[in-house]
Every structure is written in C-alpha cells, then in structure tokens.
C-alpha cells in the first residue's frame, strides 16, 4: 500500500540508515570502549526505530530482518559479544540490505525477488551464527493459516475454490489518498489474483467527469488458500468507511452470492455475468443465483414493497468482461493520475537557516517601518503619511506571510499516529481509540519534524504499556476500549503536547525496584513522584515484563528524553496507578505567533496570551471585599483572587534588600507585600497600592483562566490585542518564573510575556505566603 505515511516512513528510514552507516563506519575506527558502547547504543536505537516503524506499516520483511540485526546488537550491547571488523562489515551489509528492503517496500511490490530473498537468508544465517543459532530457513510471513480455505465444500456452497471480493470504491477514495491499484497489488501479495474485472459503470458522462473522483469498481477472484476472511477484510480497513467491500470465502453458500449481488448497485444480470467471467460461479450456479433472485424479487414485488425492481432474466448478456491487460492499463492510468495530482501541490525545500534569516529581517523591517511611521506623523505631511500607510499595510502582509512560512499545524503529524494506534492496538489485541485535539495548533516546522519521533515512541508506549488488555480493563471496571488522547496547545510561550492514556498508570514501586536493580537509585534514597517517574527515561530502563516487538527494550524512552532535551523542552509525567498517565512534552517556542493582549504595568509593557484571558473588568469598590488584605473580589457571585502585577514586578528593583541573597527567592516578595499592605493600612483608607501612585487612575483587572482556576491581575492600562511574535529570553533567564518570553513591539521596545500558569499558581498559593507575612509583621 503506497500512501503518504509510507512515504514518510521511507524518508525516515533513509535518514536513519544514513545515520547507521556513519555510526558503523565510526565503530570500525574506535579503540575506546566507552565510545564503542555509545556507538553500539546509537546503532541499536536506530535499528530499533526502523523496526518499530516498519512494523507499523506491516512491512514484515523489514521487521524480521531488522529484528535479527537488533538481537545481535543487543548481545554486543550487553557485552556478551565483542565487535570486530568482520561483524562491522556484516552490519554494513545488513544495512545495505535493509535499504534495499525498504526501497522494495516503497515500490509496493509483493514479496521479495529471488535475489533479495537470497541475500536475506544469507545475511540472517550469518547473523544467527554470531547469535549461536543454527542457520534457519528464511522465515516467512507468519500470517496465521486458516484452515477454512481448505475446508471441504459445504453443502450448498459453490464449486469455486477462490475468494471472491467485490469492491466499489467511494467517490472520494482518490482524494483520500487511496490508490485502488495498490489494494489489488496487495491482494496479489496475499494470494494469486486469478481474475480481476473492472467495472466502469459508474463513470458519468465526460462533461461531468471529475478526474479526482474515483468511479471504479472491481470484482476480484483471488486464490489464497492460506488466508482468512479477517485478513482480507483488513486489507480494506482504511477504505471501509466510504467503499463497499464484500469478501466471500471459497465455497461460499450460494445465498451469500445472492445477497452480495443484491447489495451491489449494478444490474444483477450484469453482476451475474461478471461473476461468471471471474470464474466465481459456474454457469449453472449463475442461473441458480439469478433464478433464486428472481424468486426473491417476485416475492418482494408480490408483497408490493419493491416498486422498481430491475427487469431480470431475458436481458441480453453484455459481453463487457474486461481482460487483464485492460485492468493493467487502468491501473497504470491511475498511477499517472496520482502523479499528476502530486505535482499539483508542489513544494520547494528551503534551507531552514535561510528562512530564519528572512524572519529576522522581516522583524527588523516591521520595527523600522513603525519607527518611520512615528517620524512621518511628526512631520504631518499628508502625502508622506499616506505613502507610509500603504507601506505599513504591505509590511504587515509581508510579516504575516513570512511568519506563516515556518508555521505548520501539528494536525498532520497527529494524524500519522491514527494509523499507528490502529495497527499497533490490533497487533496487541487491544481496542484503543485515539482522540486528537488541538490539531490546529501551529508550531515551527523544524520543531514538528524533530518532535515526531519522540511522540511516536510515547504514543506506542501508551498503547503497549499504558493501556491494559481488554480483560484486565474489564476486571478493573473500565470500558474495554482504551483511549489515548493526543492534545496540543500553546501555553504562554511554550507549546505543550500531551499524550494521555486511561490505562494502568505508572507503578512507582515497580519503577523504584527496577531502578535499584539497575543501580540507578541507592537504597533508602528519597525521591519525589516526579523523580521516580523520570527514572523511566534512563537508558536501558524498562519495566515491561515481556519484550515485545514494539517496545520494552528500554530504548524508546531514552531516545524520547534525548530528543526532547535537544529541543530544550522537557517532559512532565503525571500518573495515577490504575487510572492512567499523562506525558506532557513542553517545548519552548523558538518562534511562534500568539494572539497577545497587551497591558501596561508601571513603565513596562506586558503581553498576556489572549487565549487565557477570560474578560477584563474595572476594579471598583463594589467588587472589592471589605477586607483589603484579602485580595479577593466578588465576580458575579464568584470568588476571584487577584494580584497587583505592579507589586510583584517592581519588588526586586525597589527594595533595598537584594533578593539575590535569598535562597528561596520569595522572601523579598513576601516581606515587600506585607510591608506594603501594612503601610496601606496606615496611610490609605482603601489599602489599595494603586491609589498611592495615582489616585485618579482606574485599575483594571484582567481575568485569566488556566487549568480550571481563575485569577485576576491588576494592571495599569489595557492596551489591546497584539500579534505577538514570541522571542525566547534565553539561558540567562531560564530560571525566571512568571515571565515566559519576550516580544518586540512595533516601536522596537521589548515587552515581556507573562507566564499566566505560573502566576495563577502563585495566586492560588498566596494564602500561605500571606499567613507567613502576617507573622513577620505582627
């Protein structure tokens, strides 16, 4: 089956194989043991990833071969075997072979060619020798053999020993990226196509013909004694929704044929002939079928229920049977059409650095034009101002377009996992649904590319280790169907991608026991929950009892952590035993645009992510509670805690006592707040600090909502919406909480982006601080 995801896989495999080659070549020159081990680890991971991905696409030849290679690498990694030059050459040969296999898989050809098969078994034998295994015959796809195919003819069954598949593609099949030819090609892999009849009845008049629509139907006769109905139906799983597929096993009962014929849109007579042409039915059987149907329809007519039954029987036999050559030609045409379609959405690969440069330049352009505008206004020259106006509009367009270049919706990436979940869960005998939200969340293309792999691992892990088998779930009182949620959202300056499953959760005891076993944790060491959970990211760590084809070798999580950290992101794990786990990947946005809400606090301008803003209200006396220390208002009957941003933000620069000597960092704030409210008690009736600076000024509260909590921030001025290009604050501010990034305003000024989640957290926890402060004062 060739489709887009397969293309993605082959691209990835190509990259990975490139990496593997480099690693192998390095390995050949290494004398240092530690470095060798690292190289072997890398290789192992690379092959593991290839195997995993190949497994998801059902590329058995790739999986089987890689598994053997991986096993040998595993031995080397454990130290029970030592790498020598011969082994490296063998690995290199294996890598080359794998490349061929992958290329072969992309070609969508069935099975392996003789030459390939020979290499395959040769290499497997050589690898097995290292493993101490007897040379074995090249293993063949382990499709379960269903004896139904060879079952003796059932009473009333037809003589036909072939499967009969009746296929009507939906109009949108091509648009959905399904290529009818690839299905037929795939069938040929499962068995031998004895006959394919193409039905073009649905093709409309040429004036109405839409080249992107699929009007094709097929009647296929397949000789495949070793397959079963399920396996055949699986072939069409992805087109099930909009296509009509019926699969009839060999020697099916004649009634089944009748039923099938009835369900098909074409004239019954014609179908009968096609079935005959396919060899699905003998002439006699056909007559029986049609007669039986005649009877049926007669009955229906008699009952007066079927008004428009097509006339049957005496219709001249339409010798419209299409020969194999014609089908081939049609398939070829389809392939050509697909090519044309693809060329329609041409893309250009551009060096990311060039784009980055462009983005930076545009940023400068925006700032420069804002500056020019200010000056133009000052000169009060009408013509100049008008010209400026035009220029600004263009600059804005250029900015939006440029920034848009690098932004990609994550939905496309998420959709890749749908298939993964489907296939993996089936392999594991689990029923799992993938729910996607936040697909429209945009983030930098390079980020998306780099996060795809770790995400794949996490999703696979959730399926494999997270979600329990159905019987276990039932026993635990859960629905048999497991749910994996994939969610993405912007979270003030960072993007969060969440993989949430409702499975068994992480077992702290199990993790700890394993960690002690591996010497990662000393006995008696006290660890927080987060620390315990993060142990699963250690190299070679796996609590799965059984090593499956997919995961459990302890490579995945290690890679996940490495890759995410390379992006300067981090993973948070929440888990409740028996209820499920949530992995949140939090990535900094090197570049992203959010809708911001611009406010002024003191001299500084700040941005609040607009998504989190609930409303803005004026802080007046009627809202405020009587107790001015409480910092709560009554918002339409709701208690809303609030905070003066001015108090918080000015604290370190206005207090003589430097907070930098304070290891906890909070002390300055506490003392300051306490002093402030204490002074407020004495000096100002309302105890409102804003009133001290400017009694005329009205305070506004920006009400934000985060994670089910609502809180308010008092700001000096509301400035309105602002398209915010997020700039990272860099390493110097890496530990700064409460500010998540910066942006550059049109004037060239820098504005801080407020980390709303952190601020909300602070407000919620403020009660404790207030209590402490009260003690220090009184």
């Amino acid at each position, binding site marked *: 089956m060739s489709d887009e995801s397969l293309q993605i896989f082959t691209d990835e495999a190509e990259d990975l194989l490139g990496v593997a080659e480099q690693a192998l070549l390095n390995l050949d020159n290494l004398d240092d043991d530690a470095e060798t081990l690292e190289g072997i680890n890398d290789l192992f991971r690379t092959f593991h990833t290839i195997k995993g991905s190949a497994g998801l696409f059902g590329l058995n030849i790739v999986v089987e071969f890689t598994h053997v290679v991986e096993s040998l690498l595993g031995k080397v990694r454990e130290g029970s075997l030592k790498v020598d030059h011969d082994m490296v050459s063998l690995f290199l040969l294996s890598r080359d072979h794998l490349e061929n296999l992958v290329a072969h898989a992309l070609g969508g050809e069935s099975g392996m060619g003789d030459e390939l098969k020979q290499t395959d078994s040769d290499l497997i034998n050589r690898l097995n020798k290292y493993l101490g295994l007897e040379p074995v015959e090249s293993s063949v796809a382990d499709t379960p053999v269903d004896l139904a195919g060879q079952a003796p003819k059932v009473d009333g069954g037809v003589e036909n020993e072939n499967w009969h598949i009746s296929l009507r593609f939906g109009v949108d099949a091509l648009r959905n990226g399904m290529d009818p030819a690839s299905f037929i090609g795939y069938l040929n892999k499962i068995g031998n196509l004895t006959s394919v009849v193409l039905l073009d009845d649905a093709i409309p008049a040429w004036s109405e013909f839409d080249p992107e629509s699929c009007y094709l139907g097929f009647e296929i006769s397949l000789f495949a004694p070793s397959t079963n109905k399920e396996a055949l139906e699986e072939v069409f799983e992805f087109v099930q929704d909009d296509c009509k597929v019926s699969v009839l096993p060999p020697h099916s009962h004649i009634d089944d044929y009748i039923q099938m014929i009835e369900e098909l849109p074409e004239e019954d007579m014609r179908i009968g002939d096609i079935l005959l042409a396919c060899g699905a039915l003998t002439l006699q059987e056909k007559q029986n079928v049609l007669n039986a149907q005649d009877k049926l329809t007669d009955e229906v007519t008699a009952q007066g229920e079927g008004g428009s039954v097509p006339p049957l029987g005496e219709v001249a036999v339409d010798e419209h049977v299409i020969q194999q050559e014609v089908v081939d030609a049609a398939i070829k045409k389809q392939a050509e059409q697909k090519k044309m379609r693809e060329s329609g959405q041409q893309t250009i690969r551009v060096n990311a650095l060039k784009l980055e440069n462009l983005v*930076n330049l545009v940023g400068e352009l925006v700032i420069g034009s804002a500056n020019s505008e200010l000056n133009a206004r000052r000169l009060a020259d009408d013509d100049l101002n008008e010209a400026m106006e035009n220029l600004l509009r263009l600059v804005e367009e250029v900015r939006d377009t440029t920034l848009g270049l690098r932004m990609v919706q994550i939905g496309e990436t998420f959709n890749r996992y749908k298939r993964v979940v489907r296939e993996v869960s089936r392999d594991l005998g689990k029923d799992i649904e993938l729910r996607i939200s936040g697909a429209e969340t945009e983030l930098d293309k390079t980020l998306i590319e780099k996060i795809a792999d770790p995400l794949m691992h996490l999703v696979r892990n959730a399926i494999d280790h997270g979600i329990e088998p159905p019987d276990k779930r039932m026993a635990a009182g859960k629905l048999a169907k497991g749910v994996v949620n994939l969610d993405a959202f912007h979270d003030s300056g960072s993007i969060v991608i969440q993989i949430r499953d409702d499975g068994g959760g992480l077992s702290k005891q199990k993790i700890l026991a394993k960690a002690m076993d591996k010497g990662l944790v000393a006995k008696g060491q006290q660890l927080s929950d987060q620390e315990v959970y993060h142990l699963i990211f250690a190299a070679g760590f796996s609590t799965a009892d059984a090593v499956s084809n997919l995961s459990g070798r302890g490579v995945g999580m290690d890679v996940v952590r490495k890759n995410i950290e390379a992006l300067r992101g*981090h993973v*948070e794990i929440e888990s409740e035993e028996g209820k499920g786990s949530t992995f949140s990947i939090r990535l900094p946005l090197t570049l992203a645009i959010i809708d911001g809400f611009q406010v002024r606090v003191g001299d500084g301008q700040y941005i609040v992510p607009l998504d989190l803003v609930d409303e803005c209200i004026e802080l007046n006396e009627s809202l405020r509670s009587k107790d001015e220390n409480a910092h709560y208002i009554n918002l339409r009957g709701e208690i809303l805690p609030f905070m003066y941003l001015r108090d918080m933000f000015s604290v370190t620069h206005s207090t003589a006592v430097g*907070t930098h000597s304070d290891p906890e*960092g909070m002390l300055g704030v506490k003392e300051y707040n306490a002093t402030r409210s204490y002074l407020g008690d004495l000096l100002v009736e309302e105890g409102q600090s804003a009133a001290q600076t400017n009694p005329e000024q009205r305070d506004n509260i920006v009400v934000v909502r985060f994670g089910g909590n609502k809180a308010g921030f008092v700001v000096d001025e509301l400035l309105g919406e602002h398209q915010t290009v997020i700039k990272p604050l*860099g390493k*110097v501010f890496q*530990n700064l*909480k409460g500010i998540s990034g910066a942006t550059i305003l049109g004037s060239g000024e820098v504005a801080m982006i407020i980390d709303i989640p952190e601020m909300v957290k602070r407000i919620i926890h403020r009660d404790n601080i207030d209590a402490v402060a009260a003690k220090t004062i009184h």
Partner: protein
Amino acid sequence: MQVQEDSIEGGARHSQEIEQYLTFMLGGKVYGLAILNIKEIIEYGDITEVPMTPDFISGVINLRGNVVPVVDLSQRFSGQAMQQTKRTSIIILEVKNDDLRIEIGVTVDMVNEVLDIPMGEIEAAPSLGNQIQTNFISGMAKMNGKLLILLDIEHVLSIDELSVIGGIQHDSSETVID
C-alpha cells in the same frame, strides 16, 4: 589577536605574544576585555526591565530582533547601580555556555580604546584589596602607568550565576533526573 612569530616549543603562551584588549571605565577604574569576546558596542538606551530578576540584570534590549540580556557591571561588581551618562555604553559580548554562544550586553561608563598588551606584562590577580571577586579577574596589566584590570568574562557572565537567582524559587517538580 596578533601573534608575533616567535614560538618556543611547547610553550603555549610566550611573553612576546600580544593580545588585544578593549579598555573601558567603570566606577573610575579602567578595565580590559579581550576583544575576541566582543561583538559590538552600542549606545546605552531602550532597556526593558525584566521583573523579578536580580538588580545586576538591567534588563533586555532589542538587538536587531534578538532579545539580549544586559548586565549592570557596576551592580555585579560593587552592588551599586550604574550612573547613566551620555557616554554610557553597552558592550555586546559572546559568552560560551555548553556548546552555545550566548550574547550578553554589559553596561560600562565609557569605552576607551583597544590596547595591545604583551602577555609578559600581565600579572596574576592579587588576592586582596579588590572590590570585586577575584575570580572575575584574569589578570592585571600596567599600561602607561595606569593599572588595568583584565576581566575573565566567563566568570563575570557565568550563565549559571546569572540565571540561578530567579525571582521565584526554582520549581523542584521540573527537575529532570539524569
């Protein structure tokens, strides 16, 4: 850096080797910075304060679209806020951190000149009698009768030290175990 072709085998630094230093004034003293670390010098201005940061972080500036932190060297050395004058400048430096090169600006009272200083003229930092931490100083040089303090920029602008002091306590839940 100009290197005079006069190498002694094995000797990495010879007394005849010359390094170039940018000298600047700060609180009445003359300091020197190896020019290799210096990217550019800009006029002081348009600094946006970053709330909840230590006093020696002046804030950030917009350097052609990049947000660059600025450190108040006076605060960093003596705990006294810098006095802004017409000649106050920001020197943009590149500091190594792990594999990254990070741009950081420092505020100085006045930029003087670039001096060629032979390595032989540089003495080790005295351990006593200085207002600033000894590990900030890479050496002392006497030029034209004046004492020049050469700064060790990796220490002065150590990212670990600059970043360790956030306004809010570092959240332990985000610690990643290695």
